[in-house]
């Protein structure tokens, strides 16, 4: 798992970067859900076009998208790869035992199209908004304090704990873990026990660290009922932000209406 990589934010001078975080979050989420409603194959190019258009506006490099699409892309491919060959009655072509079917192919195109479009919007959101700004926008939209605090604290220590696990695994490897002969399709109970102790140690170390963190937070006034200022997203949305939000929301409504009209 690639937990060692930090914030996905990439600084650029684009209109999407300047878009008010709160409006950006709401508009892109609405558009993602509008994409999820699409079932008509004819709407796939429109959906992909909107995602590509917004990505180009964001000024993010193509490599950024390519890197991040590869892992989830493989997962989706594994889920849908058999559909065009197994689902449906309308045969489009046959090569020996391989039969390409229209209904399965349409279902695959639909899933892959929705997946690519929604994920692209997700990466636009994350690539153009620093994580802490995104969290602040979520708080201003009503995210409960406990969830916001937990998210912040978990994020703060995530990479530290990942580094701790890497060190512990390296130490285990240097002491010979995983070097013995292993039998196929068998779980070595000793290895399982050692890995359980590794994970247990990680939890205990994190717990002990959390006690120190809590004491430090208490000394700084955490939990004394001090009223926190409402997250001030000081920047009042500019006309450009409102314009972008309006355009994206109109596109979302357009897609949903088109889907409703085209549905047989």
């Amino acid at each position, binding site marked *: 798992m690639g937990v060692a990589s930090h914030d996905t934010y990439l600084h650029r001078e684009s209109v999407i970067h300047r878009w008010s975080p709160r409006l950006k979050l709401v508009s892109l989420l609405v558009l993602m859900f509008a994409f*999820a409603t699409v079932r008509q194959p004819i709407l796939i190019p429109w959906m992909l076009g909107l995602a590509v258009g917004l990505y180009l506006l964001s000024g993010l490099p193509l490599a950024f998208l390519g890197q991040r699409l590869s*892992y989830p892309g493989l997962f989706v491919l594994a889920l849908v790869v058999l559909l065009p060959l197994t689902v449906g009655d309308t045969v489009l072509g046959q090569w020996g035992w391989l039969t390409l079917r229209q209904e399965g192919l349409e279902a695959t195109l639909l899933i892959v199209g929705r997946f690519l479009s929604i994920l692209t919007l997700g990466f636009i959101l994350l690539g153009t908004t620093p994580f802490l700004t995104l969290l602040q926008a979520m708080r201003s939209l009503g995210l409960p304090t406990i969830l916001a605090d937990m998210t912040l604290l978990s994020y703060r220590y995530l990479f530290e704990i990942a580094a701790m696990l890497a060190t512990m695994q390296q130490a285990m490897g240097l002491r010979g873990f995983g070097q013995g002969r292993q039998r196929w399709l068998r779980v070595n109970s000793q290895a399982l026990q050692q890995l359980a102790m590794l994970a247990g140690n990680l939890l205990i170390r*994190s717990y002990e660290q959390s006690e120190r963190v809590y004491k430090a937070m208490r000394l700084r006034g955490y*939990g004394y009922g001090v009223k926190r200022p409402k997250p001030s997203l000081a920047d009042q949305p500019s006309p450009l932000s409102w314009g972008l939000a309006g355009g994206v929301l109109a596109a979302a409504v357009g897609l949903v209406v088109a889907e409703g009209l085209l549905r047989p």
Partner: protein
Amino acid sequence: MHIPDGILPAQVCAAGYAITGLATWYSLRQINSRPDPTAEIPKASLLTAAFFVASSIYIPVPPASVHLILNGLLGVMLGYFAFPAILIGLFFQALVIGHGGITTLGVNAAMMGIPAMLAYHIFQSRHTLGKVLTEPTRTGLFAFLGGTLGLGIAALIFLALIIFNIPAELDAGAERAAILALSIAHVPLALIEGLFTAMLVLFVRRVKPELLEG
């Protein structure tokens, strides 16, 4: 075992968010009813991060390996904090590695979080056995049940959601057969997860028993 964006229709995604909203509200209500809810936030947060990291540990099953979900273990150790912890962990996974998705966050959180809450209640019920079994045996046994059922139920929900929502023209008989075959394939994984949970809980019980008091 995360459902990515684009697989499920919008109605299912919206229903997932509704269920997750309800479960989060219930969990937060339970947390806020404690004498000092803020005292446990740092513990729950760092353990959330630790669970997220620990889920990257692979169990070697030559010639491949399996990775753990740990939702049952989260329930056993974090109690009512387990659901918010899973929600946050999945949010990070969607952000950091693009695993799961934003529109499917609600569905994924409900799929893993509700079995985690069930695992918590299973583990808490170990006290009801009284002196029928020794304390370590009871702890190990109920941790095993929590870990196994946590993953088992989540896997069933996952398979049902995928099979009922992907194929365009798959007939009901084929759907039932696919669910049955895939469920059977997940039984060994659920048993490994249960065993791992029991071993870890017994280790924590020896070294840091207060961690199991949540």
